[in-house]
């Protein structure tokens, strides 16, 4: 058999590295620090787009890390233009990280051979952190470049050799400007190379070049460099004693645990198949240490690994990504051991021919069947995973335990005009406010207004329908009860509220409805829902008001003071009408809790049910029309927990399922789209799900 040429191996390793990293970038969940770096990249992109270069230099967020890597991610955000948001930039940054991670493998393949590069390509912890929007990929590549340049640099004084020394110093400075720990861990090996080759006199000059490069590549230091470096150092000293580090409670030897295991495989078994090579590579590197120390050409690798391990052991913070600074010496030490083992086995087999005698040599049919079996499973799995991963882009979950929500049940959502979002639940109203600086957490305000059923906003403020009555929340979050004293009501239960375009407020109660005119006077409407409980109200642009009750929908035309009721004969039977929506075309949609979805076309009601295969369930809980004209529908599963989320584009119903999206299968109770084009989904027990709609969603009006 013709041996594969070196160039073929190099190409194979690089392609493999790229595929593994792209796969991981697509399928890994959002990690701890990613939103922080993505937020910084978005802020940098915004400042650059505004031409605010001083703002870039003085950007206050995440100053503990140099700016270079985040500026590279900001480049991705700039390329995305208007489509840049937390989600799209996350994946753009991941793509950039994956490409830079592949560049590290390619560089190692070029400088240390395809075997060492192949081991780096397969190192699972490296794959993880060079496929996520972390700050690892670029400094990893640059640290390889820096050490390799000094490795190539010889002992003579020729200009060419001098160039290698200075190129290494520049790479070292750039690595520091991306993330400082790579340069710090590689420093002993770099200095050792310099001294070992008798070039220690160059140290001050090279250190100066590296420092200058670091400052130039890190705009944060362009103003008050010493002050900001001191602040950076101060941050790290404080951080090592901070809450996060203390909560993690890692022992001092944790870096060795990270290196001696394959933690990424345990964290993400759906991304990494089978056991990782990581611990075996560490073991082989340890085996190789004595031989490498005896070899003057490779002694610096020992210094790099041992010095780096000592540094990480001493450093109080033990995050797993820190050990990536040691992966390059590990794979470079492990590669010759593997090569030696393979050579020994090859020679042994050449002598005895044992493998020829004992090899199974299965027939072609078995090999074909095995290939088909593995290929089929891999294809089905990869297709399903990619479908879910792509579908999950833009989805986030805010649960009661981890977000700022007091309870998991959300019955109403109202995006406010100032960009905030009000969420009504069992424990009152919770107002969400986006952070000013992206890396900060959102702010939450809680208003204890009882069990909230509905919300609506008018120029007066936010109206809240709750089991305690009707409340009006002003802009400063102060509220006052505005429950109307209605005749015929011993106790008013305000079940829903809606604001009219003329400033009127319409409420649904346990016995009909009521309206508050512009003069502040309340008028009872006992005819609404034929005097029963009014659960939903919608106001027609033509002026008609629709009331949904138990088994009835009422239409009221204030101008003529006329009522029309639609009940059993129209198909409403006894199910409650949970929501009413008047769409942009004038169609009236009524969501019933058991009979399906009804559409009023001006003449009669058309029913969409499971029987005519329009819907997966007949218990429709909520409705929303996007600016695009698309209809969003929430439905509950019959006889069990959970629900469905559907989107109707006028022709096709699109089902959002856990297998094709980030929708968790929770039961939607409320839907709303905020000013950032984010769809908010309030659920019965699982808090809120948000879905960043794509820029083209919500902008194109679909005529149907």
């Amino acid at each position: 058999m013709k041996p594969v040429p070196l160039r073929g191996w190099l190409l194979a390793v690089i392609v493999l590295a790229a595929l593994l990293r792209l796969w991981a970038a697509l399928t890994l969940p959002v990690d701890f620090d990613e939103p922080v770096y993505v937020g910084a990249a978005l802020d940098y992109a915004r400042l650059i787009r505004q031409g605010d270069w001083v703002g870039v230099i003085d950007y206050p967020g995440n100053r503990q890390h140099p700016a270079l890597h985040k500026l590279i991610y900001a480049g991705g955000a700039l390329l995305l233009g208007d489509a840049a948001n937390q989600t799209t930039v996350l994946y753009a940054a991941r793509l950039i990280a994956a490409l830079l991670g592949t560049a590290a493998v390619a560089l190692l393949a070029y400088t240390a051979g395809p075997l060492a590069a192949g081991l780096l390509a397969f190192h699972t912890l490296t794959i993880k952190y060079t496929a996520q929007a972390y700050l690892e990929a670029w400094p990893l590549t640059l640290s390889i470049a820096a050490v390799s340049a000094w490795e190539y640099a010889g002992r003579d004084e020729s200009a060419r050799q001098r160039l290698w020394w200075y190129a290494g110093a520049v790479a070292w400075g750039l690595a520091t400007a991306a993330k400082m720990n790579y340069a710090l861990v590689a420093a002993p090996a770099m200095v050792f190379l310099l001294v070992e080759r008798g070039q220690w006199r160059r140290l001050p000059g090279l250190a100066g070049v590296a420092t200058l490069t670091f400052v130039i590549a890190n705009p944060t230091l362009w103003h008050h460099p010493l002050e900001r470096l001191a602040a950076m150092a101060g941050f790290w000293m404080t951080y090592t004693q901070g809450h996060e580090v203390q909560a993690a409670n890692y022992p001092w030897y944790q870096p060795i645990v990270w290196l001696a295991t394959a933690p990424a495989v345990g964290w993400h078994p759906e991304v990494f198949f089978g056991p990782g090579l990581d611990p075996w590579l560490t073991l082989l590197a340890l085996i190789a240490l004595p031989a490498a120390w005896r070899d003057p050409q490779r002694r610096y690798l020992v210094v790099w690994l041992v010095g780096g391990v000592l540094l990480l052991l001493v450093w109080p913070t033990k995050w797993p990504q820190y050990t990536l600074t040691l992966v390059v010496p590990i794979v470079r030490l492990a590669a010759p051991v593997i090569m030696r083992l393979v050579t020994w086995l090859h020679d042994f087999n050449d002598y005895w021919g044992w493998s020829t005698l004992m090899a199974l040599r299965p027939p072609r049919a078995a090999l074909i069947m095995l290939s088909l079996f593995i290929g089929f499973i891999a294809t089905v799995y990869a297709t399903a995973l990619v479908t879910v991963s792509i579908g999950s882009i833009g989805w986030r979950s805010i649960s009661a335990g981890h977000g700022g929500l007091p309870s998991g049940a959300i019955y109403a959502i109202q995006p406010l005009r100032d960009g905030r979002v009000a969420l009504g639940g069992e424990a009152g109203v919770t107002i969400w406010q986006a952070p000013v600086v992206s890396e900060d957490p959102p702010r939450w305000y809680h208003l204890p207004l009882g069990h909230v059923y509905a919300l609506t906003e008018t120029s007066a403020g936010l109206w809240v329908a709750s089991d305690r009555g009707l409340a009006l929340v002003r802009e400063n979050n102060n509220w006052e009860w505005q429950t109307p004293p209605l005749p015929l009501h011993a106790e008013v239960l305000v079940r829903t509220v809606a604001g009219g375009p003329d400033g009127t407020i319409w409420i649904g109660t346990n016995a009909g409805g009521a309206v508050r005119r512009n003069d502040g006077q309340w008028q009872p409407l006992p005819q609404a829902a034929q005097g029963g409980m009014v659960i939903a109200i919608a106001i027609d642009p033509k002026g008609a008001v629709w009331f949904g009750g138990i088994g009835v929908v009422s239409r009221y035309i204030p101008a003529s003071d006329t009522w029309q009721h639609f009940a059993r004969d129209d198909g409403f039977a006894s199910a409650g009408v949970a929501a009413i929506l008047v769409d942009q075309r004038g169609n009236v949609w009524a969501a019933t809790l058991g009979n399906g979805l009804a559409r009023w076309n001006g003449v009669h009601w058309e029913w969409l049910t499971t029987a005519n295969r329009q819907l997966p369930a007949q218990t429709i809980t909520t409705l929303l029309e996007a600016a695009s004209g698309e209809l969003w529908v929430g439905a509950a599963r019959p006889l069990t927990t959970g629900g469905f989320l559907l989107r109707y584009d006028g022709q096709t119903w699109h089902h959002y399922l856990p297998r094709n999206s980030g929708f968790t299968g929770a039961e939607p109770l409320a839907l709303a789209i905020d000013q950032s084009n984010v769809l908010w989904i309030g659920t019965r027990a699982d808090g809120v799900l948000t879905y960043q709609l794509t820029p083209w969603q919500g902008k194109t009006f679909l005529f149907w």
Partner: protein
Amino acid sequence: MIRKPSRSVQILQYTILILGVLFAIYPLWFAFLASGRTGDRLYTLNLLGMFIPTEWTFENYRAMIFDRPLLTWLRNSIYVAGVTTVASLVITTSAAFAFSRFKFYGREFALILLLAIQTFPGVLSLVAVAQLLTALGLYGKHEGLILAYTTGTLVFSTWNMKGYFDTIPIELEEAAMIDGCGPIQSFILIALPLARPALAVTALLGFLAGWGDFIFASVLVPAPDSMKLVVPGLFSLANSQSVPWGNFAAGGLLIILPTIIVFLSLQRFLVSGLTVGGVKG
């Protein structure tokens, strides 16, 4: 002289054979059809659909591979069956070689004792095995299951391997020893390559013991889902309210393929391995 059967006899023979083949293959074909049917249905009201795929979806395969822990079960089964195979090979070949080549006190008794153990129904030992594994701290662990399966395959495989080693001329090993081989080298480098057919049989038995068993696997590793093997894992998909037939059929078809692949790989050794080892004793 062989008399050629008449045409009518030939037709009868082929009819019986074809019916036999259909009878054997139809369950598999039925499972294949069910695996591609929508809505977890075992049957269809479409008569044609009972025999040929009139509708097809890969949803059941997707659900089994992606939603259900089938790949975990497959990995567990491959681990258990693989280690059982290797352990059976290592133990039975060395034991059989010793029984075949060395004369030692108690040799005959040990061989007869092995046969006597073989007569004891394996299922009856289940409780005792479970107690032993609990005492060893291996109950509920794959290693305990491997131990149980390996001991289960020991008797037949040792006898079979011994029979095969008996057919290999001892002069070959003696010649190797004259050239400087020790007993272990002559065993590994001379006897084992010659005993490939018997090794194949031992390997296949070891693999099948670990792959297709239900009783030991479900009792000795009862939970959790992530520890189950494929057969008890598939069984656990059904509950008192429903059986996901489509998933069941897709999973069933997927888990028989590794057995077929192993069988195909070892096929050319199997006939000679079984007959030669079995006849000699």
